[in-house]
């Protein structure tokens, strides 16, 4: 890759825009699941759908915190950091790159663990959880270019 000429202003980093967009979608999914868990979206009953089974299993709470709430915080941090990282003065800031990379790796790892739980322990699939796992995977892909920024600065 060739460096952009000094007089040509580079566009905003596409990977951070991707992270912001994905994190926003993830935030809405996690928010929806958190509202469901709080009983704000109707009576909690079991149907043949896997989401109820997953959401009401003991693994829906991690270290005393409901998993959807962790999702809200995690995606919220990723969204805020990515938006901050789009601002010109933070484009080369290593801290932004570090947070995005660490957040993406942690999110991917946690999603992989939750997906394994659904497959091997709970024996039920929640489509919203799977959507979130897909987003976490894409987020990791979008965060890989941050490795370069960490090394460069």
């Amino acid at each position, binding site marked *: 890759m060739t460096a952009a000429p000094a007089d040509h*202003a*580079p*566009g*905003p980093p596409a990977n951070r*825009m991707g992270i*912001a*967009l994905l994190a*926003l*979608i993830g935030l*809405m999914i996690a928010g*929806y699941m958190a509202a469901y868990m709080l*009983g704000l*979206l*109707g*009576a*909690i*009953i*079991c*149907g*043949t759908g*896997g989401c*109820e*089974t997953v959401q*009401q*299993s*003991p693994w829906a709470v991690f270290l005393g915190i409901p998993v959807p709430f962790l999702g809200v915080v995690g995606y919220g941090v990723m969204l805020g950091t990515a938006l901050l990282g*789009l*601002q*010109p003065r933070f*484009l080369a800031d290593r801290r932004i790159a570090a947070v995005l990379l660490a957040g993406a790796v942690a999110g991917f790892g946690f999603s992989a663990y939750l997906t394994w739980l659904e497959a091997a*322990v*709970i*024996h*039920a699939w929640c489509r919203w959880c799977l959507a979130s796992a897909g987003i976490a995977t894409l987020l990791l892909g979008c965060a890989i270019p941050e490795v370069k920024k960490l090394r460069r600065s």
Partner: protein
Amino acid sequence: MAGKRGGNLNWFYLLLTVVVLTGVGLMVYGQVGRGKTRAGKASMAPVNLAAMAEPDLIKAARGVNRGAESARVEVMVFSDYQCPACAYFATNIEPQIVKEFVETGKIRLIAQDFPLGGSHIYGFLAARAARCAEDQGKFWEYHHQLLALQNAWAYSRVPPVETFQSYAVDLGLDAAKFNGCLNSDAHADLVTANYQLGQQAGVTGTPTVFIDGRQSLGPNDWDVLKAEIERALGL
């Protein structure tokens, strides 16, 4: 806003706004639709099971009663023992129903089986185990034990036969008799008949509660359920 070096991000912020509005719109639309569906499914008129079910099915299906035969109102609960919401109902709602309405002779509580299947792979076995306990006169104690300790067996890798047997021992049941019942197909026809009865009554999830045939709109919300029972009692 982004300066020159970062490029113009206005279009991107607009995109994010569109995504937020679309997401919120879908959620609101989903909730409105869900509300319609729930209202549509919930029986607005009592269900007359005797009229709608096959006579043979009515004969084969049988719930377990608790409370006075002379009670004015009948509260029928369809449960799946592997359903977490049923565990919530059994440990948080049922004791209040018993205390306020059953022990005072106002209602009769009827437990019905509705093993959902799917991911609830041990629900049918658990329903049979409870019926094996009923053979020895300890249905309600065993029913409560199964649901209160659901997490101990519901996610087991192997069928939790030994766990169920240990509950029988804990409750002082004749272990040999209980094990013989559990390790056979005893009560499989009864549980199946109860499930089919539930299907005919329009049960699609658990717990589903019928108060004199009228489906409760909030079985796991004590305030809602209590108000519905009181209405049926004319209080």
